[in-house]
């Protein structure tokens, strides 16, 4: 079961072998380089528009760390989302799971158990809700869109119920300090993001779990015939997404020193968008963790660029929308298809 598709069509008649660079195997690398290009372009725009800020080296260093820190919680959630999408599903409930996990972890009763109790609660709630999603989808045979849409509404409802619609302030200094702690000058949140991304990369690319995810997403029937327990694997994927939400909930709770039912609003859209512009195929079977990380960083950098220029968030949202559309268009007309298109235009 391999990610790669059939060998690409030779660019010119007579050319028998395609170089690695033009081949399909390097497609994710090329796309990631494209995203790096976008990031560089955004930084250049920032430097041109605000030269006095970019002239200060310590400000620039701090700015990079701020962008990474702002990307940390949503980045962790996006890793889980990327697995679900590669596995052929979608999880619309991630924002709601974060809210439920955050609220549950900051009730007065949970807080009385200390930081350990709060972290355990957030992760257990995340995994638990993810398991319910997975069971509904694989054994209840609900379409992922419907099951997680229902969970999105229900989990936010439960969060509002538990919190009594109030903002629950975390009085736990260990939790609150996660967001302000720096190790070797780098925020702890950035280390957590790096650890989750690294773990996600290894899980996807170096384990049977990852291979199975790609197989299940690419062609579930073939995967089943190949002996993979597709249902159980699907349950695990949603539980994994829930786990990431639980970790994200702790990070976000620490940053805001509080939790409430409306927190992490619309994070599902940001996570899906980041995964998609990172090259994850919405129909499943293909995607990369590194690409998703770059997707999150692109969004985080755009927000930063608009902030330092004091531009309105309305325009920012339009630009974000434009980038998503552009990324999906590129996904449809990938390098190969483009060259085909051009050769067709030339000959026809």
């Amino acid at each position, binding site marked *: 079961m391999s990610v790669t598709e059939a060998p690409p069509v030779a660019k010119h008649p007579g050319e028998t072998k395609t170089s690695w660079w033009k081949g399909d195997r390097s497609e994710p690398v090329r796309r990631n380089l494209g995203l790096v290009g976008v990031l560089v372009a955004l930084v250049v725009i920032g430097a041109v528009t605000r030269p006095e800020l970019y002239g200060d080296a310590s400000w620039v260093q701090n700015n990079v760390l701020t962008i990474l820190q702002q990307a940390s919680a949503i980045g962790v959630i996006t890793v889980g989302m990327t697995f679900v999408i590669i596995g052929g599903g979608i999880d619309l409930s991630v924002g709601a799971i974060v809210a439920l996990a955050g609220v549950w972890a900051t009730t007065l009763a949970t807080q009385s158990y200390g930081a350990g109790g709060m972290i355990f609660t957030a992760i257990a709630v995340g995994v638990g809700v993810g398991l319910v999603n997975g069971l509904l989808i694989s054994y209840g045979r609900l379409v992922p869109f419907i099951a997680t849409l229902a969970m999105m509404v229900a989990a936010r409802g439960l969060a509002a119920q538990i919190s009594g619609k*109030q903002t629950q302030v975390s009085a736990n200094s260990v939790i609150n300090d996660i967001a302000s702690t720096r190790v070797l000058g780098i925020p702890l949140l950035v280390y957590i993001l790096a650890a989750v991304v690294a773990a996600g990369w290894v899980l996807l690319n170096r384990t049977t779990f990852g291979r199975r995810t790609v197989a299940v997403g690419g062609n579930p029937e073939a995967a089943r015939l190949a002996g993979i327990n597709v249902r159980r694997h699907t349950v695990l994927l949603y539980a994994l997404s829930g786990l990431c939400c639980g970790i994200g909930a702790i990070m976000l709770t620490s940053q805001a020193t509080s939790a409430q039912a409306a927190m992490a609003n619309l994070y599902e859209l940001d996570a899906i968008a980041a995964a998609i512009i990172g090259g994850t195929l919405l129909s499943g079977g293909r995607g990369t963790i590194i690409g998703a990380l770059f997707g999150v960083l692109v969004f985080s950098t755009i927000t930063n660029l608009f902030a330092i220029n004091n531009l309105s*968030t309305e325009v920012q949202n339009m630009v974000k929308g434009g980038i998503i559309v552009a990324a999906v268009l590129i996904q449809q007309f990938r390098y190969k298809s483009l060259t085909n298109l051009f050769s067709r235009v030339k000959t026809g």
Partner: protein
Amino acid sequence: MSVLDRRRLLLGGAALGAGALLTGCTSNDAGNDAQVNTNTGGDNANAAPGQKVVIGFSAPAADHGWIAAITNNAKAQAAAYSDVELRAVEAGADAAAQRAALATLLAQKPNVIVLLPHDGKELNAFGLEAMKAGIPVVNLDRAFPDAKAYRLQIKGDNYGMGVAAATYIIAQMQAKGVSAPIIGEIPGIDSLELTQERSAGFRDTLTQAGFRVANRRPAEFTADTGQRAATELLQALPKVDALWNHDDDQGIGVLAAINQTNRKEFLMVGGAGSKAAIEAIAADNSPLKATVTYSPSMASSAISLARLIGQNKGLADLVELQVPKEITLASETITKENAANYMKLGF
């Protein structure tokens, strides 16, 4: 027992245990902090129990501390009167749901209806209908466009909040001798009219003093968005003199961001007047030096006034025999000096 069975038993047991542990962790009793006028004895003739009044009440089920306080206050104030019976209906998620809920309320023929509409324009027709049926409507905070749609309108002053925040900042800057201060603003949801009014009041007043807003990053009335907006704003402005955050609920996140970025060279003004904000102002150990009120105590006052309308009484201090038609609360500035007086009004 096979290995698999044992594993399943262990996993199942662990899951059940975790579930049981978690359900024990939803308790959240923090006591009741409602703002109630308890001045019901002594020389206040209006407070004496009178004719029984059935008050119908409806407010959106929002997930924000302010709206939660509105409903809590209304219920607590009604409970403080022996002659008031409150019939509260859930307003649902939007104007259509609230209209349906209000229709059932109307059928119960209460004496007065107190209503915080999802949207004043969309529920204008209900106001007209109820008034036509002879039931006085008290509009809470979100005005009906039609003057015939309400008997009393009681609301906060959004423009005035901006004016009050700017006035405080101008005075502080002039006292410190800062002639061209760098001022940041963190509004709530930017598409709302109330946010635009607050920002307009802030901007207009600053302009009169020759000041301007250097950067404006909207949040969404939640602590996590407040934290994000404040982090972005502080990163964009390496030096800040003053900051106005429109909402104390999102201010929890704003203060967290200030703490995380280790910035304290500026003064911050909050908005609404939450208990946590008033306590922080009194403690005077953070950049938060003041907050301008938009108090949910208006719900308590609305119930008191609805009772007077139902009993056909006026306000004791006024000459008129009836309750006025419109009341706009002043936006008050809470500072360290007067924080103690406002502590009971914090929500």
